[in-house]
């Protein structure tokens, strides 16, 4: 596997700040927001966005985590997953729920998350924040706020690192080794 860092730690800080501003522009105040991170890395990301909102607006919206495992449509195709924590601090009814995840890929996780949110209550609106959009959508789902668009090949892997879970911040693209002679744009960079 080739590994290439495409987003640095500083980039992530800037992206979180920008997304916080965008959210405020869209909602005027952070007071009626609730941020729900999708485990694992969506949860610390939601915390960071909430902290940035507090800096700008003076109000820190409640944050929680939303495990979507039990709502996935591909459970039968994988070994059984352990369940992560779902902790939603407030009633979501009539609030603006902001789903936060690290990577947007097929869109199936977000579909499951929408079902999970619907079982919690009836939010006024649901918005989606992702750190990285890598394309290859299989469902008509798009994010409202995207940190970075990263066009990738289907066989590449995008690995997001966060201080809280991995000890350091960054986004790496892992690319499988191709046979020699094949042109690999950007290899070795």
């Amino acid at each position, binding site marked *: 596997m080739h590994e290439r860092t495409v987003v640095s730690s500083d980039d992530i800080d800037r992206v979180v700040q920008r997304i916080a501003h965008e959210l405020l522009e869209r909602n005027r105040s952070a007071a009626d927001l609730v941020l729900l991170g999708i485990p694992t890395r969506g949860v610390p990301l939601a915390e960071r966005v909430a902290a940035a909102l507090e800096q700008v607006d003076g109000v820190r919206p409640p944050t929680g985590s939303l*495990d979507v495992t*039990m*709502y996935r449509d591909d*459970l*039968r*195709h*994988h*070994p*059984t*997953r*352990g*369940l*992560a*924590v*779902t902790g939603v601090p407030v009633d979501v009814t009539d609030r603006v729920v902001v789903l936060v995840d690290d990577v947007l890929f097929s869109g199936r996780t977000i579909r499951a998350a929408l*079902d999970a949110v619907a*079982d*919690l*209550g009836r939010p006024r609106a649901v918005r989606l924040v992702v750190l990285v959009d890598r394309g290859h959508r299989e469902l008509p789902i798009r994010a409202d706020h995207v940190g970075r668009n990263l066009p990738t090949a289907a066989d590449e892997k995008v690995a997001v690192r966060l201080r809280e879970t991995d000890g350091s911040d960054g986004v790496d693209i892992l690319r499988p080794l191709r046979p020699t002679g094949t042109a690999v744009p950007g290899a070795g960079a």
Partner: protein
Amino acid sequence: MRHLLSTADLDHAAAVQLLDTAEAMAATQRREIKKLPTLRGRTVVNLFYEDSTRTRISFEAAAKRLSADVINFAAKGSSVSKGESLKDTAETLQAMGADAVVIRHPASGAPHRLAAMGWTTGAVLNAGDGTHEHPTQALLDAFTLRRHLRGGEGDLAGVRVAVVGDVLHSRVARSNVHLLHTLGAEVTLVAPPTLLPLGVGSWPCATSFDLDAVLPGVDAVMMLRVQGERMNAAYFPSEREYSRRYGLDARRLRLLPGHAVVMHPGPMNRGLEISADAADSPRAVVLDQVTNGVSVRMAALYLLLAGEGSEA
């Protein structure tokens, strides 16, 4: 995990994973919408050769909360009373596409036979077989203990539990001894010598004939039902004597430490193994056990059915 037949098959990690999963399931049961789409399109058969209300309803509720289709099969009034064998019944269910079979059978070992003989490709869950095992009952007991004594996390290391009464006929006792031992708890069986099974010395627990001496040192006391229907001989002189020596009454309740809880798998013989004072005291967690039963069975069905060919 492919089947859930015995708590003796569960190692520490698997047991804790089951309890953690049950905790996540319990969290979903506090919501307004309790139903999850997790097992949509899968079929769970409740195959009950023995009367049971709470276990069958509990499994049915668990499967339905996970959106599985449920078929209830009671042997009474079915072709079993015309002489159909377990094999033929199992093959019929297989042909109908059962993904899991929850079996309650009066013969010890029937679920093992069903799982081992290849009559069904589905997961087999033992819902009580003869005097052998009742693993989901033990799991819900462990879950209830963990909630009351350990804040719902980790294992039960160092927790002292007395299991009192008709151990000989009790699959609940057998399953609990294995599971509680795996989770690190210390179990003492308290029963008249006639109601302790042969070979109990090899079980991972202590035994005693003196309830009054054991009670002050435990964190939980688990009363077993005196199973009159399984008794084919005189195991104790009279109900009155049994009740006096091994029944939990108001006086014995006061011997327990302040934090200790009283458990009973139900149905209770009030006035025999447990007095109304004890059964209705604030320390009794019998209804918690029933509630937790649904979460634990949801966890078991999820872990057995959600993943295809899962090895975890």
